[in-house]
């Protein structure tokens, strides 16, 4: 009997209850909120469900030596986490994004590319704020990339520049991407007049298959020559797009945009979530990162909308751009474009901006990858 009681007492020490700390409970609640927002509110469910459940996985109190934790070398979770740490999941996701993305809107009206460039001010605004708040330059660069509104890019860059902050940066980036429909509309309304919101843009011209095939090749060569450090992201993005547009690799394109990206999304979501262990995540730094992340989205939206207003000064009547698509220069595809469309429809129920907004939206993906390459080049 004594042995049984002793075994049970020993077993109790193995349980999560015995190793419980309040921080784990906080993180479990955060994980549950993510899952709730995904299921009930339909906010980025493909990301928030894996991340939310990953947070639950990562915050079961453990004692060291069980070799199951994400930070314990050789554990299954640790092996899966290598894709995040070594940065090979994000390029694979970019491959899938490329195979899913239709760049037609951008090719039809290439001046929309510039909006995608302007919105990257969010990255560098956040970089400056991070420096002012006492982060070192590489940490500031990793935090700044939240403003690119691109989860894989944020993970890729933070794994290189500030691995210890990666969990907070990834969760912050994905959270604010899910909150794009909440953050952006008030800023868009604040910066535009009613007349500007009613601008109707010319319908985009049809784009030939040749142009669609040329875009990924020329786009890659040009951007990669300028920013070679962005090759992992840019290369895979444009390669995925060529698979889609070439017309001869349908099976590969389907795999890249379907099963492959789904598998990697599951792995990246769960492991990033699991990396937010309370002892690693619940720090004052994480709070600062969340505040800076919010600022970066606000700056990016400001920059995008104001840039369109500025750009319109040089465009002839009839060619003007509706500034409501300025917000979609952040690369949260396609949520930011959907926000442009929905806000536009509030003021003119027949003014569909979605296709126009997709141009700067996909340009934002390219712009944020180029900006990430720049940060890696200067700070890596």
């Amino acid at each position, binding site marked *: 009997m004594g042995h049984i009681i002793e075994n049970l007492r020993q077993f109790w020490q193995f349980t999560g209850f015995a190793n419980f700390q309040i921080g784990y409970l906080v993180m479990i609640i955060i994980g549950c909120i993510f899952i709730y927002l995904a299921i009930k509110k339909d906010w980025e469910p493909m990301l928030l469900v894996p991340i939310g459940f990953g947070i639950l996985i990562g915050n079961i109190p453990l004692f060291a030596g069980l070799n199951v934790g994400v930070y314990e070398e050789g554990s299954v979770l640790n092996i899966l986490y290598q894709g995040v740490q070594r940065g090979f999941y994000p390029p694979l996701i970019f491959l899938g994004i490329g195979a899913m993305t239709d760049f037609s809107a951008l090719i039809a009206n290439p001046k929309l590319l510039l909006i995608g460039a302007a919105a990257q001010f969010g990255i560098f605004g956040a970089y400056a704020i991070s420096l002012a708040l006492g982060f070192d*330059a590489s940490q500031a660069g990793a935090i700044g990339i939240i403003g690119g509104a691109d989860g894989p890019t944020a993970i890729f860059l933070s794994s290189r520049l500030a691995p210890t902050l990666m969990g907070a940066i990834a969760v912050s980036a994905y959270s604010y991407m899910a909150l794009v429909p909440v953050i952006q509309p008030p800023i868009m309304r604040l910066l535009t007049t009613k007349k500007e919101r009613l601008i109707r843009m010319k319908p985009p011209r049809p784009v030939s298959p040749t142009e669609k095939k040329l875009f990924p090749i020329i786009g890659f060569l040009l951007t990669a020559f300028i920013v070679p450090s962005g090759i992992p992201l840019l290369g895979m993005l444009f390669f995925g797009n060529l698979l889609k547009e070439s017309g001869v690799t349908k099976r590969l394109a389907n795999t890249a945009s379907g099963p492959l990206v789904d598998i990697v999304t599951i792995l990246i979501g769960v492991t990033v979530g699991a990396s937010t262990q309370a002892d690693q995540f619940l720090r004052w730094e994480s709070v600062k990162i969340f505040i800076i992340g919010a600022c970066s989205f606000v700056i990016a939206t400001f920059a995008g909308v104001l840039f369109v207003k500025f750009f319109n000064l040089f465009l002839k009547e009839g060619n003007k751009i509706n500034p409501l698509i300025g917000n979609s220069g952040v690369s949260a595809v396609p949520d930011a474009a959907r926000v442009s469309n929905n806000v536009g429809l509030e003021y003119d129920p027949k003014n569909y901006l979605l296709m126009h907004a997709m141009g700067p939206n996909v340009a934002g993906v390219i712009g944020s990858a180029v900006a990430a390459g720049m940060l890696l080049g200067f700070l890596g």
Partner: protein
Amino acid sequence: MKHLKLFLAVVGLTLCFTAGAQSQNAMRLNEYLIVNTADYQDDFGQQNAWIELYNSSYGTVDIAGCFLSDDPDNLTKYAIPGGDLATKVKPRQHVIFWADNLPDRGTFHLCFDLANAKEIIFTKGDGKTIIDRIPVRHDLGENVSFGRTTDGIGSTDGSGEGWEVRTSTSPAHYNSKELINKGSKASRMKEIDPYGWVLALTAMSVVFVALILLYFIFKAIGNANIRAGKKRSAAVAGTDVNKSAYGEVPGEVYAAIATAMHLYQEDDENHDEESFVVTLHHTDRTYSPWSSKIYTLRETPQVNKRRR
């Protein structure tokens, strides 16, 4: 199309020349020692005169094919051989050449020494363009070198500006203590740019330049494509170029879309008479014990989303 080809050629050539120029031109003669009795040793355990080169750029530079010489009338005296990975000098790093007149000992052993040399000259792969040169001082004494005060900074014309006599040599290492202590790129960046504005402006300029170039290229391609489409249409349908040319959508298409949207938005009652035909689609389900009906009993739940 002609303009596009010209533009692409200019961009391509510019990129090629920039890449080439940036590389070897960034190399600098950085330090040399003539009388070596108690200084750096080579792989053979011998102490000889040495010359240090420094890659002042932020990219790797391959110096294979360049030349080192002690004679202004013979710039190609020692050709740095190719095929040796060690000739690729990493960014902001140094490489040492032994001026021991023993070229058989390997890539980094020169075919001259500095005992009677007047000048050290580093020349580009074309054998004519001098990248850097420095006079040889014979008044330095034993184990005293002549080197740049700050690595890579100073004259390249042989005037010796920015060079100093160094009693404490630093072969294959930074001459400047500041550079040694500056640590990582990130910490240097924070020191140079504490508020982040310089990096922000630099990076934003690059992002804009990249996307503006893309804009010009695709504007040109688009225009060329529209013109080609019009020509094709004209060839097929006489002079009526508006029927199927790229960039011109026939009015019928707009009319059809507008009618459909009007009916959809204005009059929901159009759908009051349905066909009542139910179509059963076969559900494609790859067999696996995990998806078998016997084991799962019910389908994966799917939330029915309202139309946005």
